[in-house]
C-alpha cells in the first residue's frame, strides 16, 4: 500500500490528465470548449449529493456522476455546436461562472460552504489506472481513425473541411459530449478523493492550469498531456519553497515561451513520427 501522500499525488495527477484530455479533444477538432470544468463541477456535486445525502453506494454515485455530466453536455451541445471557436470559448467561460454561482446559491447543496464528509473510493488507484488506460486507448484510436482525420481537417481549415463533406455540427456535438463526460470522470474522482465539494474548486484556475498542460505538453497527441501533467503538478511539490511560490510566474512564462517557439507543444506528431522512425531503424 502506498503512503497517503504518494497516493494523493497519483490521484491528483490522474484528475489533471483526464481534465486536460477533456480540453485536448475539442481542441483537436478546432474548438475552444471549456465545458470540462463545469462538467466536473456537475458530476462532483451529483456524486457528492447522492452518496452523502441520499446514501447511495459510492460506485453508483461514481457512475451516476459521470453519466449526469454526459447528459448535461449532450443537452448543451445542441445549443453550442454551431458556434465558432471564439464564441464557444466565451460562452463556455460564462457557463463556468453561471454554474459556480448556481451552486453557491443552492442551500440544499451546501451553498457557499459546499459539502464535506463525502465517502471515499476504495482502491482509488485502480480506478485511476483503468480510467487513464481506457481514455488513452480511446484517444489514440480516435486519432488514427476517420474521425481523427476529419478533426484535423476541421482544425486546419473549418470551411475547407465543411466543403469536403465533414459534418462539423455533428462532430462538434460528439466532441462536446465526450469531452464533458471525461470532465465528469475527472470531477467524480477528484470529489471522492478530496472528500469535499465546493463552488470555488471548479473554476477559472483549473481552466488555466489544464490549458497550460495541453499547450505545453502538446495539442497534437494525447501523449504530451500524459507526460507533462505530472511534471507541471510536481514542480511546486518538490521545488524549494522560494521557487514554488513563483509557480504562477513559471507557468505563465512556460506557456508564453511554448506558444512563441513551439506552438504545438513539446510532443507533437512530428516528434512521434521521428521517434518512430528512429526506433524502427534501430530495430532493423
Amino acid at each position, binding site marked *: 500500500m502506498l*503512503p*497517503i*501522500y504518494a*497516493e*494523493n*499525488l497519483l490521484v*491528483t495527477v490522474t484528475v489533471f490528465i483526464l481534465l486536460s484530455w477533456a480540453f485536448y479533444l475539442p481542441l483537436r477538432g478546432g474548438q475552444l470548449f471549456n465545458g470540462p470544468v463545469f462538467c466536473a463541477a456537475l458530476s462532483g456535486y451529483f456524486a457528492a449529493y447522492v452518496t452523502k445525502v441520499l446514501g447511495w453506494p459510492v460506485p453508483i454515485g461514481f457512475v451516476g456522476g459521470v453519466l449526469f455530466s454526459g447528459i448535461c453536455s449532450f443537452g448543451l451541445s445542441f445549443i453550442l455546436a454551431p458556434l465558432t471557436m471564439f464564441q464557444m470559448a466565451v460562452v463556455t467561460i460564462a457557463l463556468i461562472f453561471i454554474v459556480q454561482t448556481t451552486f*453557491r*446559491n443552492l442551500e440544499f447543496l451546501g*451553498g*457557499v*460552504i*459546499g459539502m*464535506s*464528509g463525502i465517502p471515499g473510493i476504495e482502491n482509488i488507484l485502480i480506478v485511476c489506472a483503468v480510467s487513464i488506460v481506457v481514455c488513452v486507448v480511446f484517444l489514440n484510436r480516435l486519432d488514427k481513425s476517420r474521425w481523427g482525420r476529419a478533426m484535423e481537417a476541421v482544425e486546419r481549415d473549418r470551411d475547407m473541411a465543411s466543403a469536403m463533406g465533414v459534418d462539423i455540427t455533428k462532430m462538434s456535438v460528439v466532441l462536446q459530449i465526450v469531452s464533458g463526460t471525461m470532465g465528469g470522470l475527472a470531477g467524480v474522482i*477528484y470529489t471522492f*478523493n*478530496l*472528500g*469535499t465539494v*465546493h463552488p*470555488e*474548486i471548479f473554476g477559472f*484556475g483549473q481552466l488555466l492550469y489544464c490549458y497550460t498542460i495541453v499547450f505545453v505538453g502538446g495539442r497534437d497527441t494525447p501523449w504530451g498531456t500524459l507526460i507533462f501533467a505530472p511534471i507541471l503538478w510536481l514542480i*511546486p*511539490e518538490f521545488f524549494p*519553497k522560494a521557487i*514554488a*511560490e513563483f*509557480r*504562477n510566474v513559471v507557468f505563465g512564462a512556460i506557456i508564453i515561451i511554448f506558444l512563441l517557439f513551439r506552438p504545438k507543444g513539446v510532443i507533437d506528431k512530428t516528434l512521434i513520427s521521428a521517434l518512430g522512425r528512429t526506433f524502427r531503424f534501430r530495430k532493423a
Partner: protein
Amino acid sequence: MSKYRMVVIMVLTVSLTFCWGQLYAAPVVDKWEIPFLNTWTGVGAGYGALCDYFQKAAVAEINASGGIAGKPIVMKDCDTAMDPTRAASCMKKAIEKSLVILGPMTSLDTQVCAPIAAREQVMCLPVAAGVETIEPARPWAVALMFSNRRDADFIMNTWIDRNPGIKKVVMMGVPTIAQWKARGVFQKEFLEKRGITVLDNIDVASVAVDVSSVVIRTLKSEPDGIVTRLFPADTVRIASELQKRGFTKKERIFIHESADAPELYSMSAESGNVLDGAYVGLTTINYPYPENQKLLEGLRKQKGQEKATKLMWGDAFYVATYIIKDAIEKTGATGDPTKLKEERVRIKDYINSMKNFDSRVWGTISILPDGSFDTPVYIGQIRDSKPVTISSTSEYFKKK
C-alpha cells in the same frame, strides 16, 4: 558455489543487515518538526504573511527559551495557496510522520484538510475556521476562533439592547465568503429571536464599482438598522452613501468582519469620520499584556502594518504554537516514530481538555465542548474613527 547462489546469499545478507539495523537503531529525535499549513500565495497571501509573522515570532521565542522539552521546534512550511487541491496535498504530506499539525489558515482549506486529519487521527489546529467548519473532524480539530453562534448571540443582543428602537433590519454581505455567510445566518437568527424583522439580505460583490444601487435598495425598505459583513472599503463607501441619502443615525449600523482591519478606521477618518457612532464586532483588542505589546511592535515593522493599533486575528497562530508546546511537554511526547500513534492520541486528548491555558496575548482561555475556545470577542463603538470597546463575551455570558 555457483554464481547464482552467491548473489542470492549476498542479497539476503544485505537485506537482513538493513532490516536488523532498522529494528535496533535507536530513534533519534533531536528537533520537533511541525508542519505549518499556510497561504503564502494566492488571494489570501496578505493574511498568510501576517500569520507567518505571528507563528515565526512564537517559534523564535520558544527556541530562545530552550525549545520544547529541550529540543528546538522547526516548522515545515507548506503553501496551500488557498487551493483545495494543494491544501489536501499539504495535509496528506504532513500527516505521514507528524505529531500535530499547525493550520491550515482558511475556512475552505480547513474544510478539506480537517477531515483528512481526522481520518488519519492526527490533531490539527486550524486558525480561521469556525466551529461549524471543524465539526465533522471533531475531536481531531479545534477552532481558535470564537464560536460564530455565540458571537452572533452576543453582538446582536448587545447591539439591540443599546438600540431598542430597531424593529426592522437590512443585512448586507459578501456572498462568496463561506465563514461570513455562516455568521450572517446566525445574526439573522438572533435578530429574529428578538422580534426584529430582517427585511432584506443583500449580496454585495466585493469592491463593487458602484454602491448606490445597494444603498437605494436598502433605504427603499425603510429599515431601522443595518448590519454589514463587508470589506473595509465597501463598508466606508456604503456608510458615506447612506449618510448622503439621509441615513444619519450611525449607531443603527453594525459593522462586522472588517472591524479588525486598521484600514476601516483610516478610510473612515479620510471620509470625515463617516463611521463615527457605528457599532463594530471586534475579534481582538489591544490587550495590556507585555507579549501583546512586543508582538505589536514587531507587527508594525511588517510591510503594510505600520499603522497597526492592535494585533490582527493572525495572532491565533502565535497562540496555537504555544498550545502545541504545552501539549507536547505536558503529555511527555518524545517524537519517537514507533510511538507516534499513541502520542498523537495523548496530544489530542490533552488539547481537548485544556483549561485556563495562558495564551500570553489573550489572557487565559479554555476549550469548550464544541471545540472552540472561550477567547473573548468584543463589541465596540467607533468614536473619532477609533473603536472603543464596550462589552465582551466574558461579561455577557457571565450575566447570562
